[in-house]
């Protein structure tokens, strides 16, 4: 086997490689630190594979163009950061309602508002779940290394196509701007999922048909299925409805098509949890500090384990509960004032849960985590 060459890539650049591997052929975005390299790399690479890049007038237009392109048949993505993500929420909500697959990369930075453009944060954790108004079920994945960013972006596209839904990739400034040597996956190495196309004739086609797994086959514009797409609550044909018997059907579809299949979405990394008395739960760059601290603390005999979440939403309730079953104490390490911890407290009311927060624009250090381990032990 010929030696493969590693590439030195930033997280933001790796994200584009992953997206293209997954089939991305359309990118619309608006420059914002610290996500801009995603747009720059897309602008450079997409024409080379016959794809399309457009810099829109703002983030609202960017996600709108992404949804329009996806319905027209191209796998589409946009990338932004906190303030831009806030602007996108309107049409991310539209994508939930219209069940349009697309990927939104949010390279988190400090907030609220313009906040800290060049500093790391994980304070959009909850926004990725509850950002747009209304009831729906969200999917968010969270890489922590440059290599992860490739695989998680691919996973984000696969999940978007599988579940006909927008998927958020929660990056953060540290991963986005760090360079690491990575192997890019070779053709055929990773599985790529494409949206299910209708097999019914256009006459029999029902745009938002109820199916056993809740996902309706999705044609592209121009394929003969002239259906209506609307952000208004609609019936299975795509027509607006105000009927009390039809509204819950739509909302339950949005929820159950994801909530009933969480095992296909959840992904957790576990280190040293077999005999751990203390578990550290983290994601993204905070998880790297947690893993490092676990490694350090283990060497001096502390019975500590690390649990890294690769998918934040839907929250892996059952799996996490099972993983932490043995240990009495849990440390939640995150770069915000306590967002992930609310979910942990919800699912493990019987445990002693400690929070380790950092929100000064810097990444948690392994020694800070070790210190916290020492406190709770």
């Amino acid at each position: 086997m010929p030696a493969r060459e590693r590439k030195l890539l930033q997280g933001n650049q790796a994200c584009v490689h992953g997206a293209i591997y997954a089939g991305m052929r359309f990118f619309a975005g608006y420059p914002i630190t610290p996500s801009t390299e995603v747009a720059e790399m897309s602008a450079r690479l997409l024409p080379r594979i016959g794809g399309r890049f457009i810099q829109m007038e703002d983030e609202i237009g960017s996600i709108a163009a992404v949804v329009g392109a996806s319905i027209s048949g191209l796998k589409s993505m946009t990338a932004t950061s906190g303030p831009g993500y806030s602007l996108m929420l309107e049409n991310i909500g539209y994508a939930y309602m219209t069940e349009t697959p697309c990927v939104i990369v949010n390279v988190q930075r400090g907030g609220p508002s313009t906040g800290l453009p060049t500093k790391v944060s994980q304070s959009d954790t909850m926004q990725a779940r509850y950002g747009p108004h209304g009831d729906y079920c969200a999917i968010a994945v969270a890489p922590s290394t440059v290599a992860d960013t490739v695989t998680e972006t691919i996973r984000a596209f696969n999940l978007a196509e599988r579940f006909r839904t927008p998927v958020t990739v929660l990056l953060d400034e540290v991963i986005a701007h760090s360079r690491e040597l990575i192997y890019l996956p070779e053709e055929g190495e990773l599985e790529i999922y494409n949206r299910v196309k209708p097999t019914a004739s256009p006459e029999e086609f029902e745009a938002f048909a109820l199916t056993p797994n809740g996902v309706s086959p999705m044609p592209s514009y121009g394929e003969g299925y002239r259906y209506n797409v609307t952000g208004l609550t609609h019936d299975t044909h795509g027509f607006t409805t105000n009927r009390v018997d039809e509204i819950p059907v739509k909302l339950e579809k949005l929820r159950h098509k994801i909530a009933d299949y969480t095992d296909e979405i959840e992904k957790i990394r576990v280190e040293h949890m077999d005999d751990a008395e203390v578990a550290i739960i983290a994601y993204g760059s905070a998880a790297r500090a947690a893993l490092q601290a676990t490694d350090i603390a283990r060497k001096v005999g502390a019975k500590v384990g690390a649990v890294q979440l690769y998918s934040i939403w839907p929250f892996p309730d059952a799996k996490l509960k099972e993983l932490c079953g043995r240990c009495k104490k849990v440390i939640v390490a995150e770069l915000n004032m306590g967002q992930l911890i609310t979910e942990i407290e919800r699912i493990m009311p019987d445990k002693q849960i400690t929070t380790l927060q950092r929100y000064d624009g810097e990444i948690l250090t392994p020694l800070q985590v070790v210190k916290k381990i020492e406190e709770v032990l």
Partner: protein
Amino acid sequence: MAAKLLDKVEIPKDRYEMRLSGSGGQGMILAAVIMSEAIGGADERNVVQSQSYGPEARGGASKADVVVSENEIYYPKAMNLDLLLAMTQESLDSYYPNLKEGGTLIIDTTLVTDVPTDNYFGLPFTQLAREKVGIIMVANVIALAAIAELTGVVTREALTKAVLGRAPRGTEDKNRKALEIGFEEAAKIKK
């Protein structure tokens, strides 16, 4: 046991942490990128390269870190520097406290005059670039060559390949020259 945890912990020894520092425009980030690629091209060691980002990257103090390990690199930032390259007095003053005991300090004696230790390697990188190559822009390449020679973190061959891989077209000769000077001058002061 618990109370003594912090006293006992050690920064993992499988990591080699470098910081290349200077002022904006001296090419420290590019140097760190080249160093990372040189290491990556040579063997299977892992590398994480990071830098200060933002307004400070456009002038003023500039730093770029390279963490090298044969194992998976968990924490992406430097914790305890094995090597500090300081191209200016300001960067030396800022980052010297992060250099671990017994770590390697390399300074540009053209611009650094006040060194808080006797245990260091000094070469006039900027002056060498100006006088022997004709452009000060390659001072960072001379420094990279010196790091390779003095620490053995990467071979001459791997570094040369990485530098030439990044050199803009038409500057290959000057970069080659800069590498030679760096290797030679560093060999002279190597202990």
